[in-house]
């Protein structure tokens, strides 16, 4: 159902774009194709790795480390992991979804996804170069704290 809506939305917007400007539409499709090419192999790699993870990890490991009973430790662990790794959301969401199905807690997954997008330990030096050390330090630390808070709230609401 949701997938159908997305297809319809994309189709409708594409038609609208085509109607308004043929050349721009062609360019947008080229952008989409280039984007696909840049991530296709990586997506394949991720999906295959998910296959390995889900069939080889001892059942219960994920839920033990970042599951409901892992408490604040699991949440902070997930948040730290999300802050350090540099992966695209395109790849992170399926991975996070597979963990969620393996009974990881909503809180930990929310912490992981939120810090993944908002906190960048690896990109912080670059950010500091552009906006100053204090700015980068504070923006990233505050984002980390808020990510954990958001995650805890989500854990309370979505049980």
């Amino acid at each position: 159902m949701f997938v159908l809506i997305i297809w319809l939305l994309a189709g409708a917007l594409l038609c609208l774009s085509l109607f308004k400007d043929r050349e721009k539409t062609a360019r947008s499709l080229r952008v989409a194709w280039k984007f696909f090419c840049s991530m296709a192999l990586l997506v394949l790699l991720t999906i295959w790795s998910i296959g390995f993870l889900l069939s080889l990890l001892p059942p219960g490991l994920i839920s033990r480390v970042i599951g409901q009973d892992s408490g604040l430790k699991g949440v902070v662990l997930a948040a730290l992991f999300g802050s350090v790794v540099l992966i695209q959301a395109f790849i992170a969401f399926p991975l996070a979804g597979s963990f969620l199905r393996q009974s990881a807690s909503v809180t930990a997954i929310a912490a992981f996804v939120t810090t993944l997008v908002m906190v960048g330990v690896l990109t912080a030096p670059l950010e500091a170069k552009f906006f100053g050390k204090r700015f980068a330090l504070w923006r990233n630390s505050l984002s980390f704290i808020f990510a954990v808070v958001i995650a805890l709230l989500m854990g309370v609401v979505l049980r």
Partner: protein
Amino acid sequence: MRENRVVLGFLFLLALANVCLYILNREKGLAVLLTGKNYLLEMLSILPPILILVGLFEVWVPKTVIERAMGQSSGFKGILASYFVGTAAMGPLYVAFPIGLSLLRKGASLFNVSIFLCVWASIKIPMILFEVKFLGADFAFLRLALTIPGIMAIRWILNLVLKRSRLYEEA
């Protein structure tokens, strides 16, 4: 590209591992492939329309429009513009840094730029669709609903903390 070669190398290793696993344990080896295939199908069902949306955004909302929209705005309008501008464009956070800098130069305040950076990082319309697909609508929209005020709070605290810093005077 070099990055591609690294990824290909890893893919090769995975293939090798999969063959070994299959020889050692037929069932597990097949299970890996089967799980992978299911995820692949799930991915392919949603990827094409999202890619189309990404392409359309990129072309119809070019980065110069973004800069113009935020350059002169200030106050509440600037905050709002920061939100909208951040959601529309695509790309990882480090793409946003140079744009943020040029926004600063064009007169946007550092704190609106901080909103822009946070929004750019966390709220992307195609990404939200992706999140709904893989993590569920409840999850995605609740996270969105909490992230928006969260970003406001971060901006507010940043404002307090950095008030006397050099950058603030520059900006």
